[in-house]
């Protein structure tokens, strides 16, 4: 396959950045999208140019590092992570635009790499269950009904990639935050901190400069792990409940 790539290049956070055009040839449909970029980078290095920087690590769709907006879609045309997108999803001769995640809370580090540490700070605000090592009761002491366990798991699947923020017209982090709130709040182990967890996490989310939710639904459409939009509804309910009860640390 022969393709034309238009890629966002930006030397560092202070640089303005612009789209640059590259031709790539000899692309196999079995390549992953990132392997296609590897091929281009190998060439750029030999030509003495700066290779394109992008985040990636596990390349099997679970670490959440990869983060490209491809032709306007976070993670590209398939509902998966960028690393699991293969070139067979494109046609010979296609022009492909590659851009970084865009959000005020995710400043660009270089080229296609952004800083997602705001997500870590949301988790630090309350995305955990206080269970110091050694303090745990026997695992079977509290049975968890299978439907609750399954629901917790479904939300716990979030890989923290940030596609939800990238796709949201408001740069909101509601789907990410709600996934963690629901994962923990649905479990009996998470119940004691249920109220403060949601209030603290939402407060942190706002403080990081993410936008608000207008339920456009783009987040759930691009989520590679299929976190449903109803996750946000559930978090709203948790938040209102906690506010009504006056939960505060």
């Amino acid at each position, binding site marked *: 396959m022969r393709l034309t790539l238009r890629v966002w290049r930006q*030397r560092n956070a202070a640089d303005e950045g612009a789209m640059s055009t590259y031709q790539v040839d000899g692309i*196999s449909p*079995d390549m*992953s999208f*990132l*392997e296609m970029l*590897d091929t281009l980078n*190998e060439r750029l*290095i*030999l030509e003495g*140019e*700066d290779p394109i*920087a992008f985040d*990636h*690590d*596990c*390349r*099997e*769709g*679970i*670490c*959440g*590092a990869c983060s490209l907006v491809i032709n306007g879609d976070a993670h590209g045309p398939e509902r998966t992570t960028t690393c*699991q997108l*293969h070139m067979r999803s494109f046609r010979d001769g296609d022009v492909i635009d590659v851009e970084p995640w865009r959000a005020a809370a995710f400043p660009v580090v*270089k080229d296609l*790499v952004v*800083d*997602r540490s705001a*997500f*870590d700070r949301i*988790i*630090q605000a309350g*995305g*955990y*269950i206080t*269970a*110091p*090592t*050694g*303090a*745990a*009761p*026997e*695992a*079977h002491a509290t*049975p*968890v009904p*299978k439907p609750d*366990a399954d629901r*917790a*798991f479904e939300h*716990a*699947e979030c*890989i*923290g990639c940030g596609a939800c923020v990238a796709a949201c017209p408001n740069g909101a982090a509601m789907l990410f935050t709600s996934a963690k709130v629901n*994962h923990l709040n649905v*479990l009996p*182990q*998470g119940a004691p901190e249920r109220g403060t967890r949601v209030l603290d996490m939402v407060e942190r989310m706002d403080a990081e400069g993410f936008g608000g939710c207008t339920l456009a639904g783009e987040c759930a459409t691009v989520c590679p792990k299929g976190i449903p939009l109803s996750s946000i509804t559930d978090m709203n309910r948790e938040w209102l409940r906690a506010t009504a009860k006056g939960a505060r640390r």
Partner: protein
Amino acid sequence: MSYIRYTTGEPVADTKAPSGPVHERWDRRRFEAKLVNPANRRKHTVIVVGTGLAGGSAGATLAEQGYRVVQFCFQDSPRRAHSVAAQGGINAAKNYRNDGDSIHRLFYDTVKGGDFRARESNVHRLAQISVEIIDQCVAQGVPFAREYGGLLDNRSFGGVQVSRTFYARGQTGQQLLLGAYQALSRQVAAGNIELHPRTEMLDLIVVDGRARGIVARDLVTGRIDTYFADAVVLATGGYGNVFHLSTNAMNSNATAVWRAHRRGAHFANPCFTQIHPTCIPRTGDHQSKLTLMSESLRNDGRIWVPKARGDDRSPNEIPEEERDYYLERVYPSFGNLVPRDIASRAAKNVCDEGRGVGPGGQGVYLDFADAIRRMGRRKVEEKYGNLFEMYERITAENPYEVPMRIYPAVHYTMGGLWVDYDLQTTVPGLFAIGEANFSDHGANRLGASALMQGLADGYFVLPATLNDYLARNPREEDVTAGHPAVREAVAATRERLERLLAVDGDRTPDSFHRELGELMWEFCGMARDEAGLLEALERIPRIREEFWRRIKVPGTGEEFNQSLEKANRIVDYLELAELMCLDALHRTESCGGHFREESRTPEGEAARKDDEFSYAAAWEFTGTGTAPVLHKEDLVFEYVHPTQRSYA
């Protein structure tokens, strides 16, 4: 031919493991350990490098205990450490199934599965702690699979005949890691952990014979900084990426452990690498990594190849009687559930016979047709749906209709920094936990045991033993940037990076990585022999020499520079690879993942030589390309007596 040789030095011994009955040793060790007064803990700083299962759990637990923790990861977030990719599960001797499991059986299975090349004391401790890990993780909110009654579900895994594996669909590693990450995050918020993401350790600082800090590079700005502490913990994972293609993440690397090795930490059993039998075969030269399909698939999938060579019919056209279900045939009692090393080698053998399937004949079928007939497609979907989906995404083939094609790939490294019972390396104050050390899996790791070991080390073992080290080594003067050892380490790091940038040759870092990886896979992969290893040992120094002549790294060191990161890691692979081959050459027996063609039973199985090789090989660094010193740690088996492993 010229190649690196070695000399033999004094034996090395684990002086920390107490004697006495094996099941009392851990209790005794904990009782005998000195404690640090809780009020004094805040005065101690501990550096933890890595935030995977071992590092994340260790950092969180040490901070909970009151130590000041400074923690590093090269990823942009601790949540992305490669433990996240573990699929299948975590073992624990809970015996919830009442199927005859016990701590002793887990201990026994692990020692046997490791082909009698692990320490009994360590393994028994691991089995004991396994039950606490599950309790801990459940309390943290890890959503393990459950039965309708609300209790935890289990499944069985390769190499054992009980159901002791706890799992969270095909994402157990992710869920356990998030549990540790969340505990870590709580401590970051509490101000007990100073976290440095996108920061890579490039050297160890040893002052007066003790590990006192690290040199690290901020990957965003390129700034080189020093960090000081009273102890340093390496939780930096394995070195499988020496092979270029492996199931490891792209950025997993050996730099931290190799730099520690160069600073005096012995490296044990480097040739013990695990080749995982169920990976998706490669599709071409562009391949950047290999993807694992969970071993749990072998619970219900049946592995076969055509009986005839070169049979290129599509699998569904090959009638039952012309298929060879070779694992079931050769190992009737374990069948498709034989340990990984055996399953991998069997796949290699049938492919070498010319009966492999798929492009290049490098693959075997993993067939679910029977399982779908027996359980129904829905049940199969429920159990393995996400794995099937992943397979289809990568290969564009539907495994519900066409059997999967799988092939072995490098997955895990049992070798690593030599540690004593306290998980301390030969450099006082330097500890290694998780895959970074060598201690618990011997020559072959059983499935679902890596997660168990990482968490056992991080949550329970290290926090107990580190106390003892800190209590016995009262705080000395603070190290400062002006100390000659610090200046030397910083200068060496800078010099190396500047040299990489200065060569300006005509080959990319990746081309060298690929060349080395192919060499290692060919000569130090699934099967090794003397001639091949000698050839590898001769070629590696040549690649190294060429590397320093022709490497091209664009950009500067004072910026985000992924090529520089990569090239710097390859420098260490090029040295580590040589030691791996040397270790493989010196160990003329076959054991576990290390298969020497010259040492096999009449049936063609791996033949150990217990009289000669019942030891862990701990290598001491003497210089790049100069003969290392071999220190042997004799392994004593009081409880599980070495026998020829039989899974027939």
